[in-house]
């Protein structure tokens, strides 16, 4: 707890720029038969335009539920999410989702996967072809446009998923443990690439991860989720200097922040284990 004094604990308000995402008093109650599970309780958050906001927390703490509510896949039991002031009421393509399992269509080539959103929007073939090419190049997969997903490695598949999402020009990227399924080295490369691409495209990102290292490398702010029911227990301002690289993980400041986050996470993990044991 030595680090505590030097860590600025933030209010859930947007830091830089206009808030683009605003979650107000979100609660989520799942009912299964006569049992009910409270996944979220009274969650408030604002994320600013161009910000990378990382969420860390133990498994089953409601992180994914939160992302699914923002994307419009789930309707919260109470509370609301708005994007640029307009509430999210159904599946909303302004919030592009990146899944841990890539979710590329196996029956479409890289090119056709990346074109998908534009095709659904009714864009003519020539035009969407060109845009897709641009994003395939952005993620460095130029020579793979005619490959099927099954022919690509995990890291390459996630790049295609990123290109597919970006080509559809969403305002916010929702990333649900996107690099959890790739090997450690590929993961580091993908993190660097994500930082570069987000800076280039100026997208807002909400990024869910298990890894505190990953959160500190990518984020402007880190939110720690409490164990069930999920709330944002602590929000930390990540003031590590940019540009960051894997070398940033060796700085004393990095360790301070990591310790501070770990203290909170640890407490929550313990609490959750106790809850499980008492059941």
């Amino acid at each position, binding site marked *: 707890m030595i680090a505590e004094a030097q860590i600025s604990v933030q209010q859930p308000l947007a830091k830089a720029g206009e808030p683009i995402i605003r979650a107000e008093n979100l609660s989520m109650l799942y009912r299964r038969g006569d049992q009910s599970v409270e996944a979220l309780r009274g969650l408030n958050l604002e994320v600013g335009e161009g910000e990378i906001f990382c969420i860390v927390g133990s498994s089953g703490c409601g992180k994914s539920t939160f992302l699914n509510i923002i994307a419009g896949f789930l309707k919260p039991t109470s509370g609301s999410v708005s994007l640029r002031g307009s509430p999210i009421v159904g599946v909303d393509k302004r919030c*592009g989702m990146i899944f841990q399992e890539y979710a590329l*269509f196996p029956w479409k080539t890289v090119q056709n996967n990346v074109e998908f959103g534009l095709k*659904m929007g009714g864009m003519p073939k020539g035009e969407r072809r060109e845009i897709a090419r641009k994003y395939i190049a952005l993620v460095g997969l130029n020579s793979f446009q005619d*490959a099927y*997903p099954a022919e690509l490695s995990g890291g*390459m598949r996630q790049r295609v998923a990123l290109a597919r999402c970006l080509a559809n020009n969403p305002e916010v990227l929702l990333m649900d443990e996107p690099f959890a399924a790739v090997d450690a080295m*590929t993961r580091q490369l993908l993190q660097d690439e994500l930082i570069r691409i987000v800076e280039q495209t100026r997208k807002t990102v909400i990024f869910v991860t298990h890894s505190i290292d990953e959160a500190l490398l990518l984020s402007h702010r880190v939110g720690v989720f409490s164990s069930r029911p999920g709330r944002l227990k602590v929000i930390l301002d990540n003031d590590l200097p940019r540009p960051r690289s894997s070398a940033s993980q060796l700085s004393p400041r990095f360790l301070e922040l990591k310790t501070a986050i770990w203290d909170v996470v640890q407490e929550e993990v313990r609490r959750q284990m106790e809850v499980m044991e008492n059941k």
Partner: protein
Amino acid sequence: MTEQSKPRLVAAIVDSSGIKAAALAVETAHLYRKSDRRQAQLAFGVGLLSIAAMLIIWEGMTRLGVIDPVILVPPTRVLQIFWRQLVDGTLPLDLLLSTYRVLIGFLISAVTAIALGVVLGMSRVAQAMFDPILSIIRPLPSLAWIPLAIMWFGIGEKEKYAIVFMGTFAPLLVLVIDAVERVDVLYVKAARNLGASRAQVVREVILPGALPSIMSGLKLALAISWACIISAEMVGATSGLGFLIWVGKDYGDIGRVIVGMLVISATVVVIDAVFAALNRMLVPWLRNAQA
């Protein structure tokens, strides 16, 4: 085991540097495929030998009188009958008629079962409505529909189409529903997130996602169609392969019966080849799949 894991490890390392993983994987896959091909050739050779041996034994046993010609005629005699019926046009005509009946009934069944199957596979309410009906008609063997078809349509071409339709519809419908249900919801979620409407989800996700399983369902349904039509032609027809066999039986002509049976067997081989080609054409993404 260790040999197989080596190239994979190399692929994983190269992967980290980002690029050549796929190229390498394809290369190693090619190596395995080469040995696979050699094995396939070997198996084919052995298969030919065993057929030849069977024919020689069969010919010998029947020539030497070990087997009564009332039970079995020699293969040379079968070939003779086959050739005669081929040249006088009866065999091609019967084959053509049976094929035509199968295709009409099968197409009607395929179109309706796929359309209804997609709806039922996607809607719990619709499925709950159809489930009781389906659970009654599903256990019926395809041939159990023959009497009803004859009573409804009389003996004729319509009755043949109806028998094929009735015999294949329920099993095919069940397979299509299953294929649709097994499409990963993750794809539906991704498509919706990218702005696809519900109709677009059906066209762009459900149908292509279910296609590989639907194709194997169709192959099975086509095999059932043949069983239906042969039986229907035995019961009531004046043409077709089933009729050919049945007449052979009536005349005590073993050769004719065997010719008919071998032709049916050949049609199934042709069907398999056609479906393999269709699969390569319609499901190209599974051709190079590694996983």
